[in-house]
């Protein structure tokens, strides 16, 4: 075959004008999705949310990905047709300019991708007023299941129980085995520490701290147990005078250092 020497004139290329705002949208949506998926698969979601609502965030991750996909399809088809339309504006009035909104969304998602959330620790607990927690928990559950075996009760189980029936002597001698992080309340004597947990009802925004006093063994002082380290405390309940009132305290027989649990909150 002999090729015609005259090659076809190439179609004139239109100047490439990228629809930046739409691209920004796609990027923002997909990065948000990536961030949620990262928390989902990395197991860090439990630091942010009550496990009951984890599925909401996971579904949102998928929906956002689909939305981003749909926008990509739209972008491509608009380009193929040549020239896009801005889409009918359905009487929507906005407060922020769209490109600023997209940029804000995108940058926060990028931040979320980089940053690893941390579980709250003792400083936050102090800031949120742990000293009140023995007499007051914020939510008032209408019903809670009491662990029949005292050694199976968690910190929050004990607090709820004491809220319902506050007489400390009623629990004297009951076996205790709880896990939590260490706090050193300033007003307490040197041989007491507090073993604490944060409790969630919805998400980290409403986490509130609760804690139980622990009376250390005679030859120990609180400096043996650094603040924010995690302990497995066993012993039995006793009544002590702290903060000028009688309250329950764990007379510790054994304190073991443990790693921070995967899920540091209680519910």
């Amino acid at each position, binding site marked *: 075959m002999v090729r015609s020497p005259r090659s076809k004139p190439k179609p004139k290329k239109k100047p490439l004008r990228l629809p930046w705002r739409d691209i920004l*949208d796609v990027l*923002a*949506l997909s990065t*948000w999705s990536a961030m*949620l998926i990262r*928390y989902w698969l990395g197991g860090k*979601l439990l*630091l*942010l*949310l009550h496990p009951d*609502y984890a599925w*909401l*965030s996971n*579904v*949102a991750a998928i*929906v*956002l990905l689909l*939305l981003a996909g*749909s*926008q990509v399809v*739209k972008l491509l088809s608009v380009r193929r047709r040549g020239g896009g339309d801005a*889409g*009918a504006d*359905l*009487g*929507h*009035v*906005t*407060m*922020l300019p*769209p490109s*600023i*909104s*997209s940029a*804000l*969304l995108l940058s*926060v998602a990028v931040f*979320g991708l980089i*940053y690893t*959330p*941390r*579980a*709250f*620790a003792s*400083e*936050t607990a102090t*800031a*949120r*007023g742990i000293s009140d927690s023995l007499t007051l928990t*914020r*939510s*008032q*559950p209408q019903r809670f299941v009491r662990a029949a075996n005292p050694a199976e009760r968690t910190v929050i189980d004990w607090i709820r129980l004491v809220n319902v029936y506050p007489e400390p002597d009623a629990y004297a001698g009951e076996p205790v085995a709880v896990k939590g992080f260490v706090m050193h309340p300033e007003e307490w004597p040197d041989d007491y520490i507090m073993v604490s947990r944060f409790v969630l*009802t*919805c*998400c*980290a*925004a*409403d986490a*509130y701290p609760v804690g139980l006093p622990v009376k250390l063994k005679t030859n120990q002082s609180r400096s043996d147990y650094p603040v924010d380290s995690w302990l497995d405390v066993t012993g039995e309940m006793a009544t002590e005078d702290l903060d000028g009132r009688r309250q329950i305290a764990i007379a510790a027989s054994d304190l073991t250092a443990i790693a921070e649990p995967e899920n540091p909150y209680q519910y």
Partner: protein
Amino acid sequence: MIQLNTGFTLFLSLLVEAVPFLLIGVAFSSVLMFLVDERKLIGALPKNAFLGALTGGLLGIFFPVCECGNVPVARRLLVQGAPTAVSVGFLLAAPTINPVVFWATWVAFRGQPEVVFMRVGCTLIIATTVGWVFSQQKDLGPFLQETVARSRFREQPVVSEQPSLLQGGTFLQAVGGGTLRLDTPVAQRLVANPALDQSTASKLSLVLDNMVRELRELGAVLILGSAIAATVQVAVPRETILGLGQGLISSILAMMILAAVVSICSTVDSFFALSFASTFTTGSLLAFLIFGPMIDLKNIGLLLTVFRARAVFYLFALAGLMSFGFALFINLYVG
């Protein structure tokens, strides 16, 4: 450094918890926009002012869910001849009284379920009352922006100086006698929901576009709101917050100002309020949850596209005073 970490974790936790509800919200609002035809609805509305306001308040169940979606709908309702009571009742209640917001509030305040019911109840009472008050104004015209007032469909035809027999224009002969003038509906159609006359494929693409647009706008506001909430939690000393938040009146005023400034979408505002739940009185949280969806900075801009400044001020004052009253009552006698 620890404080910074706490702040970031709080901020992300608010966002991660709120984004699914924001998605549900914009999906509902975008889909419903293409399903519900206000024109058919208006015929079925009660004429009694009180019942109308109540119905308007409950209409939120069938309509777009956020305060930014409800102003355009309220405008369409007004223009297409819905009674004032219905439109105003809808305007105030729709962002709160709908299933998505109810669910989100329930998730956030599971520990204090009374907050959820008081939010819905008080909003309905306020919206109905304000709608009723506005309906006492015989002609709403002077309250509306000119463009809205002009295109408004009037129940009583405009009394013109021309004898009715000599009016020009296009008329339809109705079956039972009488005529229907076609000119007015033309004006109505211009402001009617533009989405209803599209093909299914383009409707779907419009739904997606609208979702992305609303997500972009509301997501940005959500981010700003979460940042404010997290900063206040971390940066302001606890004594200051407690001093403000435990005062019976100061807490309510603080939360109402916050509600007006932050402009956070009603679908997710309960999570914002939740981060103040341990330091602020129950009444003040309720004031935030009731007042915020009705009036805020973002909303005032939208409202001014429908009402004149005077009417917006009346709305603002009535809704604000009633929210304050309810919140104070709850602080004094319930919480």
